[in-house]
């Protein structure tokens, strides 16, 4: 029994009001489906059923796209930028006002710790809406020509790892640029998107500007392949990203894709060790490792290997795995049974391939989907666990000798989303950054996001950028 036991510090669920069932949000109202079917969404920490949601069928998707088209032609494309901006400012303010409710809802539906949804996700959501609200009447200054125009209707499909944040990354710039949207949240995390629909109503957003169609892969496909969608935006797996790229081939549809990664987190012998260890932990265990840009490959310079690993293992001993609604939890639940199975399978592969597996001792709850933070050492580039995205709290540790070798190993992957560099030497940071083939390079930090900072990948991690002035490009022509 530890000397200083932190007593349970649960965040109250009373603030959220989850309905027993939800329809689809089309043309400013919640409506029953035409050809959709019900399915359930579950709390991954307890397997409790939260609500019945609707998987939109093709006719539902069609209705949503039609509503978006009408709203675009009659209202949104005629509205001056300053007014579009004002709607977005309203939405941003309401998100701030309802921030606690949204954070609790996100943790319940996704499984991530309340501390993260409260301190990271929701504040960034509000910030994205504030940032893009300000662009709506300044598009002439975005570097895209004197009078850039929106595409029209955007079909957007988002993943389950940062549900409301991914929604804000998609909807805020699209609306600021003058497009209307139909968005499909992930199958396992629909609730904050549905709460967002309510926020759109509170902001008095004109009907049809934002439409939310819940559902799974089929709904997503129907949306992406709909002939009247001008622009497709997708965040998710590389596999599905490729399918989308194929489906828009030969059409006039524009697409941006934000896909998977297998980022190298590179630690040099002159790194600030304690902060580097924090960066490693943050890089792969933040959000249970369900992060496309996770630092899932630790590349540590051989000369400091022992010390870094010893510090890392010691640090992992203070990680708290458990109830997402406990304010002291660091690592929450795995999002679904499916994802848990995948993580387990790949971990078994890692062991079979000869890597050494280690986890700090931790007690996992009996119900729900859980996986302890795990470190594989003795990994090399030829191992599957060094190449394939696991999307879970599993770190693969490799070594390198020189900066050039670190760059080579970091780049030796079809992915190219992000990378980390840890060294106190400024020139080396810049030398490495200029050679790493990754869309985001974090130096002496990791997993930092800001609405002003463009994010996106090289190679099979996708194309297009979200955030910043560059984030407008996807939604204007």
């Amino acid at each position: 029994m530890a000397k200083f036991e932190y007593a349970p510090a649960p965040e109250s669920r009373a603030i959220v009001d989850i309905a027993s069932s939800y329809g689809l949000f089309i043309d400013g109202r919640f409506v029953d489906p035409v050809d959709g079917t019900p399915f359930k969404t579950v709390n991954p920490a307890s397997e409790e059923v939260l609500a019945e949601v609707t998987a939109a069928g093709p006719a539902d998707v069609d209705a949503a796209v039609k509503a978006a088209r009408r709203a675009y032609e009659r209202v949104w494309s005629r509205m001056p930028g300053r007014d579009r901006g004002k709607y977005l400012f309203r939405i941003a303010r309401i998100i701030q006002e309802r921030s606690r409710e949204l954070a609790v809802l996100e943790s319940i539906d996704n499984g991530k710790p309340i501390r993260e949804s409260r301190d990271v996700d929701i504040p960034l959501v509000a910030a994205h809406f504030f940032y893009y609200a300000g662009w709506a009447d300044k598009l002439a200054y975005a570097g895209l020509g004197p009078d850039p125009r929106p595409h029209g209707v955007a079909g957007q499909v988002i993943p389950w790892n940062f549900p409301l944040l991914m929604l804000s990354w998609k909807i805020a710039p699209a609306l600021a640029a003058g497009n209307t949207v139909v968005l499909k949240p992930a199958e396992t995390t629909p609730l904050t998107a549905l709460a967002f629909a309510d926020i759109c109503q509170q902001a008095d957003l004109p009907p049809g500007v934002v439409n939310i169609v819940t559902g799974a892969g089929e709904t997503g496909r129907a949306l992406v392949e709909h002939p009247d969608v001008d622009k497709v935006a997708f965040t998710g797996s590389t596999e599905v990203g490729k399918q989308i790229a194929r489906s828009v081939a030969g059409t006039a549809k524009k697409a941006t894709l934000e896909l998977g990664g297998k980022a190298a987190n590179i630690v040099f012998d002159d790194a600030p060790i304690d902060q580097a260890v924090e960066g490693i932990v943050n890089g792969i265990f933040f959000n249970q490792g369900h992060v496309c840009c996770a630092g899932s490959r630790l590349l540590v310079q051989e000369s400091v290997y022992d010390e870094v690993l010893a510090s890392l293992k010691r640090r992992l001993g203070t990680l708290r795995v458990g109830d997402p609604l406990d304010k002291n939890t660091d690592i929450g639940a795995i999002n679904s049974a499916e994802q848990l199975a995948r993580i387990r399978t790949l971990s078994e592969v890692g062991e079979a391939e000869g890597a050494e597996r280690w986890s700090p001792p931790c007690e996992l709850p009996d119900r729900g989907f859980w996986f302890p933070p795990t470190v594989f050492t003795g990994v090399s580039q030829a191992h599957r666990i060094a190449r394939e995205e696991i999307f879970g709290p599993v770190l693969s540790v490799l070594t390198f000798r020189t900066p050039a070798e670190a760059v080579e190993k970091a780049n030796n992957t079809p992915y190219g989303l992000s990378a980390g560099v840890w060294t106190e030497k400024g020139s080396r940071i810049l030398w490495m950054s200029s050679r790493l083939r990754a869309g985001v390079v974090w130096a002496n930090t990791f997993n930092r996001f800001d609405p002003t900072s463009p994010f996106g990948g090289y190679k099979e991690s996708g194309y297009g950028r979200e955030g910043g002035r560059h984030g407008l490009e996807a939604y204007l022509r």
Partner: protein
Amino acid sequence: MTVLEALDAARLSEITASETSLRRFLHGLAGVDQVGADARAAMLSTRSIKTTAKQWAIDLAISMIDLTTLEGQDTPGKVRALCAKAQRPDPSDPSVPHVAAVCVYPDLVGVAVKALAGSGIHVASVATGFPSGRTSLEVKLAETREAVAAGADEVDMVIDRGAFLAGRYGQIFEEIVAIKQACGDAHLKVILETGELATYDNVRRASWLAMLAGGDFIKTSTGKVSPAATLPVTLVMLEAVRDYLEATGRQVGVKPAGGIRTSKDAIRYLVLVNETAGEDWLDPDWFRLGASSLLNDLLMQRQRMATGRYGGPDYFTLD
């Protein structure tokens, strides 16, 4: 270069043999990224310590306080009143633990020793030209000897920050060794005055310097300079004592002082200790809080947890 090697006696005397070797060692320690350290301290500040954990933490914090008065206007009367408060923080509640020590100027040590006789509370004395440290080694030694002769159990010395910023690590090392000798059986706390050291790299180096020279405790501040103790600075010092124990087998204590006013602050420090150096430091022998007004806030929180009502200053003695 990072401290990987075990530092045995031979290696230690090698490191401290000359100004050059000392500099090489201290500057070879891993750097501290300021933004990263601040972020880690901030994240640990979000820990929510409630109910039983909070009660335990409040009582532990009380028992770790070095109740302090270091004013030009201090008198024997003032010191006696402080000592009474130290023994019985809340006259209406005998279950409240007593504090760890009372901290005064050397000329009032005698008064404190008499007032605290038999209580188990230590008497700590500042010395060495506190707070500025700008005086000769002879004067510093004389002051230390006086405090110890008057009965001080602990001596809180200041390092020469001017020497540190000018890179004269050897001089500081010699001074600490000499003061430690003059302390005899008394424990030596070495005040780094982190607010004047300005960077976390300097705090790390000064921490190691103080420990290599034999300090029993490293302390953040005199409380006379702003900023005094902060969570990130204390984090760096806790990392240093953790690494030092691992390298040498010797445990050194940590004392943040100055600017710790509320129970919330105090509990944040305890969380920092718990998740950095570890629970071996969660003990008044290894962690102290240099404070004065903090005590009443802890008492107020303690009472609120017991009665369910928010209190007011009228219900707690000023000293």
